[in-house]
């Protein structure tokens, strides 16, 4: 296993942050606070790194691309419009009316419309999944069907009964399944994180 400075950094910084979680010590807290500040700043820088990579890729496509130039132009145009709205002299950034207008008139409707389409796609995927893996998918779809019935927006006696049954299903069988899932995921997460922090399998090696 290759040991290197990044691996050592992962181990030392990770264990220090973990220690700060379980031990109350002002010096340790100050050191952990500084490291946290670095991580927060690096995370913001990572967002810019990603945007740079996307922007450069689109510029490359524009230069060498053939007919399909509308896509890169829209990506770059979208980025430019948002940045101009957020950085023009006197702009207040994310709270600026121009930015808020772009978000409410373009960003939100785009994503919400895509998510709305998912209702059709989910139903289509359910049908296709049935052909690929029938027994599990049949059980899954019947359970989905039962959940849909329990969530029907009905009033009166039937609605009250369905609502009660829905609450019970959420609390007992579905709640039990998801508690088991959460416990399983927590165990898996803890093991993976511990292996990284102890550099057991060189996951963080350079």
């Amino acid at each position, binding site marked *: 296993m290759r040991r290197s400075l990044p691996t050592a950094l992962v181990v030392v910084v990770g264990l220090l942050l973990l220690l700060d*979680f379980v031990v109350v010590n002002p010096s340790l807290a100050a050191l952990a*606070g500084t490291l*946290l500040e670095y*991580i*927060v*700043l690096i*995370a913001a820088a990572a967002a810019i790194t990603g945007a740079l990579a996307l922007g450069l890729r689109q510029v490359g496509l524009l230069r060498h691309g053939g007919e399909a130039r509308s896509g890169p132009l829209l990506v770059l145009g979208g980025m430019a419009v948002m940045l101009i709205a957020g950085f023009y002299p006197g702009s207040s950034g*994310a*709270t600026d009316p121009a*930015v*808020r207008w772009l*978000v*409410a008139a373009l*960003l*939100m409707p785009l*994503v*919400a419309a895509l*998510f709305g389409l998912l*209702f*059709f*796609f989910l*139903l*289509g*995927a*359910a*049908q*296709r999944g*049935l*052909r*690929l893996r*029938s*027994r599990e*998918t*049949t059980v899954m*779809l*019947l359970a*989905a*069907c039962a959940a*849909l*019935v329990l*969530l*029907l*927006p*009905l*009033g*009166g006696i*039937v*609605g*009250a009964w369905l*609502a*009660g049954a*829905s*609450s019970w299903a*959420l*609390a007992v069988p*579905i*709640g039990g*399944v*998801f*508690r088991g899932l959460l416990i399983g995921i927590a165990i898996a997460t803890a093991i993976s994180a511990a292996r990284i922090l102890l550099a057991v399998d060189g996951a963080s090696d350079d």
Partner: protein
Amino acid sequence: MTEATPEGDPQIESEVKESEAGPMRRRAPASLRSRAGWPVLAPFALLALLAVAVVLPNLAPPLSLANPDRTAVTGFRAALGTLPDDPLVLVAFDADFGTYPEISYATRSALAELADSGASLAFVSYSPEGRALAAAELDRLQRSGVPADRLLDLGYRSGVEAGLVQSVTSIVPEAASGPLAGRVRAQGGGIDAFDAALIVGGSDLGPRIWIEQVATRIPQLPLVAIAPTVLRPELEPYLASGQLEGLLGTLRDGVAYGGDNGTAPDRPPSALAMLLGMLVGIGVLVEAAGGRLAAALSSLPGRRR
């Protein structure tokens, strides 16, 4: 029981090829074309049906989008009811664009109720989408008449869990000014300066991360959440264990809450449209799963004879 396998089925092979080609290279989703009971016009017929239902007023009393079981609403209101006078509430706004329309009714009702009760609200976000929505909601609250000195914009914090953990001890930006920012600084400047946190979830950075990173460091802070229906099953164990003190986790609970407190600024979604859409969904699933189930039952050894 004989199980269908992908191999050798030309229909499935063509679907796999289509899915490998990616959505951009397809004309339309395979399921929407005239196969397997999904004629090409079905989505448009459903859209038309829903459109009529949306425009029509809610006709019949048997329809009720508000959940008749008020357990969630009572729990949510009880959690907020324990707040002291002139409470300071942190609104952790990390909804996403895709699911916010579903929880906007409940969120706006809760914000209106808190504002009416004299609470001061500080907004913070740990996701970009949450930040955009928080800025829009802050503007809406100011336009609706909530005094500016009772609202505080704490902005966006990067770093996901790291940003959240940092906020435990320091949440007010250097540039923040005003009486509310001063009040938070005077009480320590971190999340524990607040009387409660209302988590508006939807993205990955939702109530679960708050429970894992904040509740473990400030166990006395009451956490209440508003989340889309899709997160409801995942959050049930946290609600049952008491780690989450209140949760509005379905559209029906949100509508019940907004209808009960009478402060909902919007009209609730159409119950008729939801009912029709759900019935169509049930129909499609029953047709799909029921057909497979019937085929499986008929192929049982006893039935073959």
